[in-house]
């Protein structure tokens, strides 16, 4: 059952809004400025709108619909109390230009969150301004560059292992750096020797994800950080996988200099179909002067915004960041406490290892080390013509959201599973049973995989056609 576009529901004269009568004289703009019409905009009733988006929603799969083991995305349960907190009128209704003495609740929350994230990560200071992980990366690498400049150096290269997220090289490039890829090698983790080999006095930084995108802890990280530091460089940590380490080990203690957090991963804020998230950044002492401005500070029990930061890299966006997301993360931290966060990391790692143990005889495991919060298989042992994509689509028929596929790039046909701690053993068992059943189907009835999914609103879509002749905007038929 197709749901029409909202534009196709439009009937001239229908309306879905109401306004109080205008209580002041109407004003006409000069003709040169005046807009007569918004051609194409829909005219629908409130009922039309409600049914339209309700129906659209039923074609989506969310965390509350079932297991969503998308690797690298930490799709943990999004607590409902956080949503209620974010909707308190005193929170959502506070204007960003409210005088500081009349927004102490908002400022206080942000200050406490900065402190808590610093404690969790082992960094000395945290900015909450960046709007997402990649935005945090950008702030982080800007700070690295600003620090080098302040030292009077202008290094040009950034080292990035092949297990990195794609945003890492993109960010480095956006800051004017040349990207030097490093191979992580057979073990899946960086060796100190490799880093030493690449390190020279044109290297501004190493960007590393820990645990990395194979779910492996970078065991040599302390030594690697020492090597980079001795070479005059800094180490950037992509914090996307912090969910494996809370209360276990702190990136700041490991020798990293900068790290972004993904509040929408580690701290349970909803993913929203692609956002909004929030990407705070933690730094060590020496980078504090370069943090974006403003920063929330506490002065004699009053919270205020400090704009007077002459060495700051400046502003990453308007206002103070995605406050609504910070608020949810703070509610999560209050709920969990320190012991609860550690327990979350432990159970996340337990869950991933359990899946690994249940599937490793059937699915090829390209890296043998003990992995942490996620596990990466390949499709090497999948029978016949069936590949990772087919497996993923077949999982949809079984009622699951597929794992991340074809990432990380170092694994051919990668299947990257991150269960998170909020899933129960029963859920994992049923999922593993499905994975094992699909492996058998690949052998006995490969067409079940190749033609999947079968129960969705649409079948596999022609992405090539979409890209070849892009249709990005609805135009009514003439």
């Amino acid at each position, binding site marked *: 059952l197709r749901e029409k576009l*909202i534009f196709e529901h439009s009937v001239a004269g229908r309306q*879905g809004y109401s*306004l109080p009568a205008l*209580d002041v004289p109407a004003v006409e703009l000069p003709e040169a400025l005046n807009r007569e019409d918004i051609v*194409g*905009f829909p005219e629908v009733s409130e009922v039309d709108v409600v049914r339209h988006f309700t129906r659209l*929603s039923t*074609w989506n799969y*969310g965390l509350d*619909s079932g297991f969503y083991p*998308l690797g690298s995305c930490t799709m943990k*349960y999004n*607590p409902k109390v956080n*949503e*209620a907190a974010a909707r308190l*009128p005193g929170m959502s*209704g*506070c204007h960003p230009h409210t005088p500081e003495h*009349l927004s102490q*609740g908002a400022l206080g929350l942000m200050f406490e969150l900065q402190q808590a994230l610093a404690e969790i990560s082992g960094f000395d200071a945290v900015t909450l301004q960046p*709007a*997402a*992980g*990649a935005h945090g*990366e950008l702030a982080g690498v800007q700070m690295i*560059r600003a620090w080098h400049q302040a030292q009077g150096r202008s290094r040009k290269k950034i080292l990035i292992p092949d297990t990195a997220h794609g945003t890492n090289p993109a960010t480095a490039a956006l*800051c*004017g750096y040349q990207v030097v890829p490093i191979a992580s090698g057979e073990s899946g983790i960086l060796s100190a020797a490799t880093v030493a080999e690449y390190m020279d006095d044109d290297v501004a930084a190493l960007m590393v994800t820990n645990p990395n995108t194979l779910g*492996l*802890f970078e065991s040599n990280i302390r030594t690697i950080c020492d090597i980079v530091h001795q070479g005059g460089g800094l180490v950037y940590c992509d914090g996307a996988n912090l969910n494996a380490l809370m*209360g276990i*080990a702190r990136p700041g203690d490991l020798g990293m200099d900068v790290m972004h957090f993904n509040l929408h991963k580690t701290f*349970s804020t*909803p993913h929203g*179909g692609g956002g*909004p998230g*929030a990407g705070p950044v933690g730094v060590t002492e020496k980078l504090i002067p370069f943090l974006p401005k403003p920063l929330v500070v506490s002065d004699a029990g009053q919270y205020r915004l400090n704009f007077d930061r002459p060495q700051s890299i*400046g*502003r990453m966006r*308007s206002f103070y960041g995605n*406050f609504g997301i910070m608020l949810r993360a703070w509610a999560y931290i209050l709920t969990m406490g320190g012991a609860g966060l*550690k327990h979350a990391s*432990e159970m996340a790692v337990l869950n991933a290892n359990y899946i690994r*143990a*249940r599937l490793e005889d059937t699915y090829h495991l390209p890296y043998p080390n003990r992995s*942490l919060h996620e596990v990466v298989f390949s499709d090497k042992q999948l029978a016949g013509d069936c590949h990772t994509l087919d497996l993923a689509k077949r999982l*949809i028929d079984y009622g699951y959201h597929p794992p991340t596929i074809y*990432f990380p790039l170092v694994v051919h046909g990668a299947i990257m599973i991150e269960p998170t701690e909020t899933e*129960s*053993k029963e859920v994992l068992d049923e999922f593993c049973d499905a994975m094992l059943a699909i492996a058998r189907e690949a052998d006995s009835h490969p067409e079940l995989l190749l033609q999947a999914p079968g129960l*969705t*609103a649409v*079948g*596999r879509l022609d*992405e090539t056609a979409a*890209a070849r002749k892009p*249709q*990005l*905007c*609805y135009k009514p038929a003439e």
Partner: protein
Amino acid sequence: MRYIPHTDDDVRQMLATIGVDSVTDLFVEVPEAVRLDRPLELPEPMSESQVLAEMKRLAAQNATTETHTIFLGGGAYNHFIPTVIDQLISRSEFYTAYTPYQPEISQGTLQAIYEYQTLICQLTGMDVSNASMYDGASACAEAVLMAARATRRKKMLLAASLHPEYRETVATYCRHLDIELLDLPYLPSGRIDQAALATLLDTETAAVVAGYPNFFGVIEELAPLAAAAHQVGALLVTAVAEPVALGQIKSPGELGADIVVGEGQSFGMPVSYGGPGVGFFAARQKTVRSMPGRLVGATRDKDGRTGYVLTLATREQHIRREKATSNICSNQGLCVLMATIYLSLLGRRGLREVAAQNLAKAEYAKQAIGALPGFSIPFSGPTFNEFVVEVPGDIDVLLLKLEQQQILAGLPLKRYDATMEQRLLICVTEQNSREQIDILVEALKGAAA
């Protein structure tokens, strides 16, 4: 722990399957030396009722329209938010899903983005819109980067009347990319000085960046700017911090803009202390492949059914990594949905009516305040729903007096520009009744007396 389902028994069984003795054994690859040997120092865990109570305690320390009469704008706007929006975005299929990587089970998100892209095109008068960016300021920065890529030039003329936070954000993004940012001054009208523009423009110029309306609420004349820019092969980038204005003022596309960015918070999102909102980004067809951000396109499945997919991903960093058009790898999904629902509800007539009310109410306030003894309106250009007022006496004292009457009268501009120490940016929306405006006017009069 209500979010973590593991019982002791579950843990035991799972460890047995894995073949280790304890949870600690799962962390063998984390060297002892780097493990944290103490508990995290955070507040004790709270029950749900305690968390809510704490959040209410904090919320009660913030001024809002429930406690004060507010005339603050300057990049975030108090518009009425129809209840339907929250009802719909609270459906877990929307807000607990992630980026639509698997289109077959993400058609809800994808179709909504496609509708959003279409609405943005219709509203801005442009050909293509992306699936959104972080906010107006960062979208503006991305527009400047795109203009540099598209023109292969490095000189940008930024209107001094552009929102200062947009200007600062552009500066941060351009910092290490050899892009030169020059100020484009404004006239006593509050509009861009076209004579100065003529002097500054040259064939090195990549783009002219103008607010529309600008930071002072003044509506720029875009057509001559576009003409001048195009003459030297430069682009006109228009930044719209208050897009409700587009219900009453001509679209930037119609007037010749090449890239239109802006902040969509006005479209159904609460002010939320400044975020999250949504940055919109629209451009001409010919530049689609150099646009940053995600795009959703229509296509078909094997049975010919229409469906929507993320497309032109070759511009993105997970394929081209350091050669990507930007490092952005998400969009503001849920905020996009809010804007889409808002614009659908208001529609063709409703957005124009809301805009008409903003225009009329702000003008009513501007006339009344401008007529007060000691007060003046420094900029003569036409304004939409905010305007600058020059106030007599000590502005901080004045504002405090109004606060005591539960009125937040406006944004003092000295924070952005020390030369504006007597200036206040006052915003009036459809949420402010005539009665509220009259009270403001009286209060200003009383406070200045």
